[in-house]
């Protein structure tokens, strides 16, 4: 029997499409009250007065929490770093526009909305800056966190200046990516129920129930066991639900203050600022190469925006450390503090924005050298990690290039811009390399064999659209030798064995490994008890008294992480059609070939990659959180103004799975696929736009006005 790799449809698909799947806001508890946030209009300053007198006189209004009357939390509002610093009405400071400054609570949602709109805020504004350019001079180096590890801000090898001097061709350019805002279909939502004065149940839309648990436990100074966090389904997250934000604390505070269960959902405009977003970046690239295309220098310096009160670093220059063979490399990260909400991880954080710059610069270098862009990349294929000087645990990038180019028809590309037209449209083709770390973090799981021969497997990861319920069931069934129907996998509960954050392409590899190990252990134990094959499990359990037989295991990375560099790789190919006069760009085709170790479910892997590639279209052409600099406020605050790709923008998307075996990366042999589909996609599209038009766009998004 084979389970792993089977294109099993999502086991939770019917529940999702029929509405049976319960999302955070849908949990109902008797006596529920409803909370709505009131947010600041100023970008910096102090709240002088919150006038809630009219609001609290309205029928059904239970309370309006303000900086003056909100309960003082006995503990810190930040969990263990890197948990985010949040504002929870503990003082009168305003750090960014759209920061929560009051919470209206009422007996119905409508009354809470009404009350929130009646609250008047008087504040004392201070001078603010939300423009990256204005603070670039004050940029400072900062280490970053990626894949759960701390990584130094700067790394270098060799002498880049010398490498540039020795080069026959050089590209020195600045690239820019705009602030972007995650907009999952389901906005953040929290339901807080105090079961006792020191016991709290929370239903939350989160990527990490354990972080929510720890943050609440610390803030309310309770043992973490007293906080029970449940999240059975999450309606998209993309990094924005990786850290619990202010609304989680505020909901629990509101519930405590009104003495009732409280539910709170962010409204769409609330998404812009208080729950992260991808930071604005400015990236300087310097590449030097010999005539034959071999790189002599690669410098990638990134500056990204963060808030005044917390740090997030977009790891734009990380790929430069591992992707191409070059004797002289430097990679630097700087942060720029602005009066904005703290940015956070957004699908392929760093790699998506960084690959736009790096892979655009390589395309410019190919033009300067009159080399095919794919050939240039092959010339600089890294056989080992260029900075760490160590092997890759596996690398199938050459196969990705070859398979992607073949399926795309790369040989039909004309090197000369504006050389091809179709029905009056300019046709362009571009490509880019994709890479994303094969992350692995400690994960625990339990597996239980029941007396009826069915198995239950648990780990506190999340279903965020990743297919966790399906894939983990497959892994478990495979290890136990059972058909998938006989295995149930459950997740999303802080009382379950601890899992890492469901983000950063970590969780399938990590929890998948834990599930694999625990099911192997369970199988071994059953075999020791006399089982011979899956058909005899029930009998063995019954013979032993009928109580379920349970095993718990932990999977964790070891020394191999120091000996190998672990990356998933891919190659993206884009064909665009550009209206020569009106500047409208259509991505006619996007082909991506990816090698990410073992594929657990080909259907869901393709879905993940396809979603990532569509995200790349949005990044290339649409997404932009527009700040009004004078007001210090994002003004593209709804889905009509904040564009993501619509169905009509997505034409042919073809993800290709390239076979790869990796016996080192983690026990499951998996490199996560949540992000890699986005890596390189925007660059491939921008490079195709250059090929179509001869116009090099170095600042995203590429909109018609850039191409007139």
């Amino acid at each position, binding site marked *: 029997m084979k389970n792993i790799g089977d294109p099993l449809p999502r086991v939770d698909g019917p529940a999702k499409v029929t509405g049976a799947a319960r999302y955070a806001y849908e949990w109902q508890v008797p006596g529920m009250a409803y909370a709505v946030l009131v947010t600041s209009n100023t970008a910096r300053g102090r709240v002088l007065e919150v006038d809630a007198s009219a609001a609290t006189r309205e029928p059904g209004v239970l309370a309006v929490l303000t900086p003056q009357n909100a309960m003082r939390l006995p503990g810190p509002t930040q969990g263990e770093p890197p948990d985010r610093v949040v504002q929870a009405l503990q003082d009168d400071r305003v750090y960014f526009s759209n920061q929560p400054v009051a919470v209206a609570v009422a007996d119905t949602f409508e009354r809470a909305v009404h009350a929130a709109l009646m609250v008047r805020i008087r504040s004392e504004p201070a001078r603010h800056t939300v423009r990256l350019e204005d603070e670039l001079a004050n940029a400072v180096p900062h280490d970053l966190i990626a894949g759960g590890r701390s990584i130094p801000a700067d790394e270098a090898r060799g002498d880049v200046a010398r490498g540039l001097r020795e080069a026959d061709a050089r590209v020195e350019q600045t690239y820019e990516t705009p602030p972007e805002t995650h907009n999952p279909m389901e906005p953040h939502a929290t339901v807080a129920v105090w079961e006792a004065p020191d016991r709290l149940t929370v239903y939350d839309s989160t990527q990490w129930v354990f972080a929510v648990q720890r943050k609440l436990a610390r803030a309310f100074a309770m043992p973490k066991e007293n906080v029970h966090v449940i999240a059975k389904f999450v309606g998209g997250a993309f990094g924005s639900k990786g850290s619990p934000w202010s609304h989680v604390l505020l909901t629990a505070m509101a519930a405590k203050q009104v003495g009732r269960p409280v539910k709170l959902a962010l409204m769409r405009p609330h998404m812009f600022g208080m729950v992260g977003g991808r930071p604005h970046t400015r990236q300087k690239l310097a590449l030097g190469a010999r005539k034959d295309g071999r790189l002599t220098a690669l410098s990638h310096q990134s500056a990204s925006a963060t808030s005044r009160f917390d740090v997030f670093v977009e790891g734009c220059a990380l790929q430069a450390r591992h992707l191409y063979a070059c004797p002289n490399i430097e990679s630097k990260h700087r942060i720029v503090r602005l009066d904005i909400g703290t940015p956070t991880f957004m699908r392929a954080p760093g790699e998506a924005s960084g690959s736009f710059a790096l892979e655009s610069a390589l395309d410019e270098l190919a033009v300067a050298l009159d080399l095919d862009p794919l050939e240039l990349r092959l010339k600089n294929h890294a056989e080992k990690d260029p900075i760490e000087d160590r092997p890759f645990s596996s690398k199938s990038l050459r196969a990705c290039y070859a398979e992607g180019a073949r399926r795309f028809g790369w040989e039909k590309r004309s090197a000369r811009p504006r050389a091809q037209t179709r029905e009056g449209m300019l046709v362009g083709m571009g490509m880019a390399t994709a890479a994303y770390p094969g992350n692995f973090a400690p994960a625990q799981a339990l597996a239980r064999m029941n007396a009826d021969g069915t198995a239950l497997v648990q780990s506190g990861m999340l279903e965020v659209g990743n297919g966790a319920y399906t894939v983990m069931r497959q892994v478990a069934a495979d290890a136990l030798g059972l058909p998938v129907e006989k295995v149930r996998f459950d997740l999303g509960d802080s009382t379950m064995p601890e899992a890492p954050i469901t983000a950063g392409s970590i969780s399938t590899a990590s929890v998948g490994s834990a599930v694999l190990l625990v099911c192997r252990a369970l199988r071994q134990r059953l075999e020791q008890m006399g089982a011979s094959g899956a058909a005899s499990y029930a009998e063995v359990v019954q013979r032993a008294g009928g109580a379920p037989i349970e095993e718990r295991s932990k999977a964790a990375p070891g020394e191999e992480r120091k000996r190998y560099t672990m990356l998933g790789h891919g190659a993206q190919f884009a064909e665009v059609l550009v209206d020569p006069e009106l500047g409208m760009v259509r991505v006619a085709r996007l082909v991506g070939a990816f090698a990410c170790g073992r594929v657990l479910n080909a259907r869901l892997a393709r879905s993940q990659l396809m979603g990532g590639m569509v995200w790349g279209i949005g990044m290339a052409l649409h997404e932009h959180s527009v700040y009004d600099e004078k007001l210090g406020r994002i*003004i593209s605050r709804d889905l009509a103004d904040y564009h993501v790709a619509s169905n009509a923008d997505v034409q042919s998307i073809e993800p290709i799975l390239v076979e790869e075996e990796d016996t080192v990366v983690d026990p499951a042999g998996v490199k996560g696929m949540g992000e890699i589909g986005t890596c390189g996609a925007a660059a491939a599209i921008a490079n195709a736009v250059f090929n179509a038009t001869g116009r090099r766009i170095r600042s995203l998004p590429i*909109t018609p006005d850039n191409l007139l």
Partner: protein
Amino acid sequence: MRHFSYQRAASVEDAVRAGPGAAFLAGGTSLVDLMKLEVLNPSRLVDVSRLDLRGIEARPDGLRIGACATNSEVAAHPEVKRRFPVLSEALLSGASPQLRNVATVAGNLMQRTRCAYYRDLATACNKREPGSGCAALEGWTRMHAILGGSERCIALHPSDMCVAMAALQAVIHVRGPNGDRDIPFGDFHLLPGDHPEREFALEPGELVLSVFIPFSAAGMRSRYVKVRDRASYAFALASCAAGLEIASGKIRAAQLALGGVGTKPWRVPEAEQALQGQSPERVAFQRAAEIAVRGAQTRRDNAFKMELARRTAVRALTLAAEGA
């Protein structure tokens, strides 16, 4: 959302009687949205969506379209597609299928601006709150008007349908406390001037009953071109409705209106006249396009609209000349 009363009109007369001081509700795609944001706060709603105002009727000299016909119905109507392809194209280029299925013709006539400042209570807006100022003037103006603005308001008119109707020289039939009257399309939308809060040439209580579009040869040879940031569900950066009547190789009559650039649907009769008698060729189209954007005032983020609007007009005229 503020408290309001809701009344379902039993008849047109009933609606008109209840009209003064109330807001008429049809599809609700604009009104309800803005009420949720508290941008519009009518104390009374009079629901006219169930009145018999949905018919589309061919008359000898034109098409009469009921005020409550939905965008989808109008776009798909065979006579609309045959007589006024530009109108069908404009409607189908707007919003999403879900919205088009409920949005109505009269609602679309009265569609409010998508100016981000108008929709954000945290900012100053003379249209929303007369005398409070205009945050857009010194703000992000990429989606703001370059034609028809004033020092008090540069909010863009967002409708696609209205651009086509402006070009087709539709007439709006209304009924009010003082009886029926017809309003030429060009007079229906007001320029912001000193009073951006006044948007329509409607008297208190007046209800739109229908829109009449006269048949024309140019209307049958008409096209709509819309340039936008994504392929669907996006407002125009620039758009153009163009129709041409061509006889013996010359333009006999032209219809031309721009969208995405004006504080109202921007029809320029001088540009139409400039096309008359000309050969339907690029040079004539460029000249007309030049005239169409005359007087434009651009700002930091919308300077591109000038050139984009010209090119969009040339494209629409070119397609119209190529014919159905």
